[in-house]
Structure formats: C-alpha cells, structure tokens
C-alpha cells in the first residue's frame, strides 16, 4: 500500500563518462503529489541525474533500478520519457518561438473537427488551461512576445495537457522576478493538488524552503541525504551541500598575503551598467598579482561582467581603467592586445576549436607573433606546445591530436596554456573547473595558484564557494548585477560568502 504512493524510485544509479564518474550509487525517490528539491553545488551530479530520468543519458548498464509508476522503465530519449509522463521544463525553454501560446500547448495533438484543426476549440481549451494555472492571457499571442514567466506557464500547461505525472523544473526561477516567482509557486501548489509531482532544481536556497516538501542533496556525484525540508535547517543544508569536511576546506584556505593589497591597481571598472539591467552599477578593481573572486548566484551578472571587461560586449555604460588609464576595448582583439585573457565557462562552444590540433589550440592567439611574412613557424609552434604540454602535464597522445578527443580537464589545461603562452597581465577565469572531475580539479587549482605567483592578476568566477576560499585574496559578492559585499583575506570563508549572498537577497 505504501509503495503505491511512490511515483519515481531510483536506486543505486551510476553514470560514468570517459574519465569521470558523474554519479555513483545514487538513490532518489519522489512521491506522488510531492515537490522534491534536488540540491547540490555545480558538478554535484544534479543535471546528470535529471538527464538520466528524462532519457537523455542512459545509466551505466547493470547499475541500479529505475522504477516509474511502479514499473521498471528505461526511456531511450526525451520523447519516450514524455510518453511515460515525465516532462521537463528547462531553463532554455523548448517552445516554438513564433507560434501562439495555444499552439505551443497543443502542438502535435491539436483538437480536430472533421479531420482539420479546430482553432476555436484549441484557443478556448488553451485559455481554460492557462486560467487553471491562474494566468489570464491572450493565448493567440506568439510565444516570443510574452514574458519568460508566461512562457514557463505555457510549458507547464503543455506538460499537463500531455498527462504528465512528473514535471522537472531545472533552474526554472533563474530568469523570473519576485512576482513571477510567486505566480510560479502558486502554480506548483496547484499541480500538487492535482497529484502531479515536481522535481525542483535550483541554486536559490530560500526558494527551496518556500516550495519544497523534501530535499535530496547530492555532492560530488554521491547521495548525501534526503529529508523533509522542515527537518533541514539552512546551515545544515549548506554544510551538506559543501560536504562534511567543510572545516578541512577552511584549513586549506589560501594564505593571506597583506602586501598584495599595497600593489598598484591593475584593472578597474567603475559603475558598469547594462541597458538590459543584468549589470546595475558594478565597481570592481584588481591589483597586480591579486586573485579576486567573483561570487554570486547564476544570473547575478558574473559572466556578463567578464564579457564586458574582455570587450566582448559593447552595450554597457561605465568607465574602465587599465593601469589607471581610461580604456575601452572594442573587441576581444583589443583586450588580448592589452594582455588580457579570458577562459569562457562554455568551453565547448566558446573555448576550444574542436577539429583543430592541440598545437593549434594552444598557439592560436599568437600565431601572428610566431610568423615571418605571414607564414607560421612550425618549429616555434611546436616548441611552445611541448613546453606547455610538459609544464601543465597535459595528457595527449601527441601535439597533433584533435582537441575534442581529450578529456575535459585536459581541454581546460590546453586553454590555460593558450593564454599563459601569451604571457598575459590578467586572466579572467569563468568557472574554470566546470565539467572537470575531482582529480583534475586539484591540478587546475594548483596551476591557478602558480599563475598568481608569477604576478598575473586573476579574476576568478565560480559558483563553488570553497573554490573561491582556496584560491582568492579577495572575494567580491555580486547580487542582481551589483557588488553587495567585499571580503578580504581572513574574512573569506564559505559561510561568509553564503551569508553575503543570502543577505543580498533581502
């Protein structure tokens, strides 16, 4: 009888990627009509788990059990999962942008009359479905003309119309404002009342307390705990998320060197604003040889700021100074010329040149300098490549191997080499350890600290606070496009960063 109440039951799930164990023996259950929070830091394995549930990935063969609605299932793709009754609402919404709200709800199963689409009934049904969710909107409007919140409601309405039993919301609130979040939560409560279960994945802790019944916490691909939220005080939650060895991490904290604060300022940005309000007047400065951490939640403007600094984004207001002289980079080309470097968080799309060799990937920014009469010196290229392959111990069969054949950690090292070979004055690192397994993470961090010792300034963006604690001389906390707190030296700790982020919220 008790079993009947369980909608989704996953036991002992493992998932191995080449070189990385993303999940090891994870248990996960969701009851009917329950809102389950799935929590953990970046790289904890949340998204891998979600992708296994929705059939995007397959779990390692032979590992564990996946029961949905009491039956063992094994969806092979998202469509199959949808047919089982599992719908996902991604951060990047999967809707057809130019079609109306009504059509987006019913596309593929539009109501028919005499074999043709009955638009009147479809619009009426859609109107009703949206009203059910508490949204009064003109359903004939194209989806790209309405707010993100309504788009999300449309996706939810679609999920309901396809008889979803389980709706997964992945970072669903990251682009919503407060009112919109409230509406979304009202809708989630209505879903609960209908007996539909929700898996809620988010970084925003107070939202978890507002909406979730229970929370499952993952850490480094392992199951940590699953408890009702009422039995999970915030501090416990954070320490579960950061891992039980939180104190050891603090011990590993970077030794604070006061002298760095007396160095000259290398880079300064004053009152940076963007018209779309992702940046709301940020002030930041970085001294020579200093490692400045940029903390904050997703959408707090970390990456946007990095792109402004690197000249990739021109649409901003504000002043930037290099060595005290006002500059404005019109493109990354300008920034590189001024000895700035940037490692993007999206390594696959914005970092590597997948079909080119390791050698080309490392020397790309400087092929101009390695050439005579426009012809590249292979010898010099090879020399630099070999130097960095051994210096950063990049594991690659040869310098001619295509970079896409390397593991994530080694790809990241190649990108580091690319910039180090240029002898930069400042490096912006955006989530340098994303998608890299634990062993390689340590290596990457060692490289970062050795870079800092060479006197190169570093702007370190990360959503993993302990990483900032281990590496930074100073941490600037961003919240909604503003710098809300600055922590220097001894003040930096996982808890203090967390507290500053939490304080920014109110």
């Amino acid at each position, binding site marked *: 009888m008790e079993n009947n109440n369980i909608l989704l039951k996953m036991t002992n799930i493992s998932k191995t990627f080449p070189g990385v164990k993303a999940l090891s023996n994870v248990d996960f259950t969701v009851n009917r009509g329950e809102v389950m929070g799935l929590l953990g830091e970046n790289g904890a394995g949340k998204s891998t788990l979600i992708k296994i549930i929705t059939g995007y990935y397959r779990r390692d063969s032979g590992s564990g059990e996946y029961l949905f609605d009491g039956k063992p299932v094994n969806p092979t793709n998202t469509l199959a999962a949808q047919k089982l009754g599992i719908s996902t609402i991604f951060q990047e919404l999967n*809707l*057809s942008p*130019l079609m109306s709200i009504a059509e987006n709800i019913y*596309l*593929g199963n*539009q109501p028919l009359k005499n074999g043709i*689409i009955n638009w009147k009934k479809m619009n009426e049904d859609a109107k009703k479905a949206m009203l059910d969710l508490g949204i009064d909107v003109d359903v004939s409007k194209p989806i790209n003309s309405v707010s993100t919140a309504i788009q999300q409601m449309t996706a939810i309405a679609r999920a309901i119309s396809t008889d979803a039993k389980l709706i997964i919301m992945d970072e669903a609130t990251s682009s919503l404002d407060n009112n919109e979040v409230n509406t979304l939560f009202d809708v989630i409560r209505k879903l609960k009342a209908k007996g539909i279960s929700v898996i809620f994945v988010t970084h925003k802790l107070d939202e978890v307390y507002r909406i979730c019944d229970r929370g499952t916490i993952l850490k480094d691909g392992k199951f940590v705990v699953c408890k009702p939220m009422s039995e999970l005080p915030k501090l416990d939650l954070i320490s579960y998320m950061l891992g039980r060895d939180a104190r050891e991490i603090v011990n590993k904290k970077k030794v604070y060197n006061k002298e760095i604060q007396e160095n000259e300022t290398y880079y300064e940005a004053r009152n940076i604003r963007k*018209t779309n309000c992702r940046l709301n007047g940020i002030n930041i400065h970085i001294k020579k040889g200093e490692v400045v951490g940029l903390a904050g939640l997703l959408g707090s403007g970390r990456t946007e700021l990095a792109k402004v600094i690197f000249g990739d984004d021109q649409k901003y207001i504000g002043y930037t100074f290099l060595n005290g002289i006002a500059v404005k980079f019109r493109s990354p080309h300008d920034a590189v010329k001024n000895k700035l470097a940037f490692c993007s968080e999206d390594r696959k799309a914005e970092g590597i040149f997948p079909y080119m060799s390791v050698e080309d990937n490392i020397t790309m920014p400087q092929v101009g300098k390695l050439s005579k009469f426009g012809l590249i010196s292979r010898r010099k290229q090879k020399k630099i490549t070999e130097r960095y392959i051994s210096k950063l111990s990049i594991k690659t069969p040869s310098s001619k191997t295509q970079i896409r054949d390397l593991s994530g950690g080694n790809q990241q090292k190649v990108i580091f080499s690319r910039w180090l070979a240029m002898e930069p004055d400042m490096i912006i690192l955006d989530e340098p350890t994303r998608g890299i397994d634990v062993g390689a993470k340590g290596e990457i961090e060692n490289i970062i600290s050795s870079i800092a010792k060479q006197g190169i300034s570093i702007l370190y963006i990360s959503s993993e606070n302990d990483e900032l604690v281990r590496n930074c001389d100073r941490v600037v906390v961003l919240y909604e496009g503003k710098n809300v707190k600055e922590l220097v030296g001894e003040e930096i700790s996982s808890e203090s960063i967390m507290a500053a982020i939490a304080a920014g919220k109110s």
Partner: protein
Amino acid sequence: MNNKLTMKSMLGFLQGNTAILAVLAMMALGTVTYGSTFLNYGKNIYNVIRMASLIGIMGIGVNLCFFIGGRDLSVGAVAALTSVVTAYLSNYNVIFGIIGGLGVGLVFGFINGYVISRFKVQPFIATLGTQLAARGFALLINNEYSIPLLEGTEFIKKIGNESILNGLVSIPTAVFIILIALFSFILKYTHFGRSIYAVGGNEEAAEMMCVRVKAIKLAVFTISGLLAAISGIILTGRLNAGQPTACEGWEMTIMAAVVIGGTSVRGGSGKIWGIFFGVVFVQFISNLINLNGRISAYWQDILTGIILLLALFTQAYQTWRKEKVAERRELEKQLANS
C-alpha cells in the same frame, strides 16, 4: 466613423503586407508611364499574371522550404527536366507524359529531402548538386535540343495556353490560385502544416514536442520537387515543347518573390499567399522594362537582385529593431520594479 475605421484598418493591413502595396505601386507606375498599353487586361496584365503563375507554382515549394529554414535551388532545373521528359513521353501518350513529369519532380525532391534530412547538410549545397544533375539529364535526353510537342498532345498545350471564365483567368493562374488555397489550408488546418512552422521556428524544440522533424523536412522538399514538376508540365504546354535550357537563373527571381511576399529568411513564420503578390510584383518589373523597350532586358535581373537585397536588409533591420525594443521593455520593467 465606421468608414474611417475601415480605412484605418485597411491601411494597417497594407502596411503589414508590403507585397500588396508594392504591386499597387508597380501598377500605378505602369499606368502613369504607359497608360492603356499597360492597363489593357487581355493583352498585358493577363500575360504578366500568367507568367507570374508559372514561376509562382514553383515558388510555393520554395516558400515551404523557407518556412522550415531551408533553401531549394534545384526547382528551375527540375522544371526544365520535367518539361523535357513530359514532351518526350507525351509524344507517345499524354498520360505517360504527365506521370513521367511528376515522377521526375518526386524523385529529385525526394533525393533533396533525403540528403538534407539524414546527412544534416546545408540544403543549398545538396540542392545545388541536384540542380546540376537535373540540368544534365535535361540536356542529355535529346542532345541539348528542345523536343516539340507533336499531334495528340492537345491536353498539355491546353494547360499552358487556354483560359477559363471567358478568358479572364488563364489555366496556369487558376492552378496557381488553387494550389495557394490548398497550401494555405494545409498550413493552417492540419498537423502537418503546423509542424512545418514548428520545425522552422526551432528544430530542437519541435523534436521535444513530438514533431517528426526528419519526416517533415523530407516531405517539404519532396513537395517542392513535385510543384516544380507541375510548373514544368505547364511550361511544356506554354512553349509547345520540352526546353532543356528553360528556367535558368529563376532561383533568384523565385527567392525575391518569396522574400518580398513577406516570408522571413529565418523560417518558422509567414503566409503562403504572399508569394502571389511577390511573384506578380517581380513580373511587373520585367513587364515595365519590356514595355519600355530601350532599357536592356538585363536590368530585370539586376533590379530584381537589388530589390531582393533591399528586402533582406529590411528584414535584418526589423529583427534588430525588435531586439532593441525588447531590451528597452526589459529596462523599463526593471526600473518600475526598483
């Protein structure tokens, strides 16, 4: 009051449908410059619209490809091959001719669709390839000579030359209008039609919403081939022969008609009837140049090209402005919140 309202709504309608406005402007220009020579329905406008229809039937297929974000550059060559095959076979039996012609369109459309949907190649490269092949076959069949229609092929000749409703509407135009109506209906009222827009809007999203993306692409390119074949059969009747060099360079004219008709190059939206006005507009340009007689006929292509570019610029500008407006709206929202 009521009158004003309809005037206003009509103006608004025209603004949203530049193609109609363009056709009206063209007609005004024609009337002012050439007066009754231009306006003579039976002798001038009738012919212009008949020619436009011939191009437009192919244009429907190209337009459908635009809706899914693809390009079909092979239609002209496929129509030429169809005309040769139809003429060749019709001299034995008209039914063979028509079936053979349609078969050509089907086969080439299918090859296009298959290569594009399965091998994930850019449509234009694949259709450039089939264009080359279709033209090659067309030239091969009768050693680069055209094949005249012999006795007993009256049916095909009729399709190309006769008219209905007391000479008011030519048969090609009738076929064109029927096809537009048919496809308007399919696009609006069937699952298949709606799926075409979904694929064009966002392929990945369409896949997530249970649309069979590959099948839709295959179907659209096959339909495009079939429509090119229909156009080719009518052309055979019109020329009284199968002409292997027919329709050369029509790809741009057709694209111009599609874009001027209001279809976005990005895909995912648009109405099929825009092609009617687009294609009539493009034909009016050549008509005016022909009527003048002094201007070189090559200005047709040049002008069409320039107009296509202008239309593309306008589209690019509109997208840019839309983004700008959306950005400002977000800014205002943010300010209101704070």
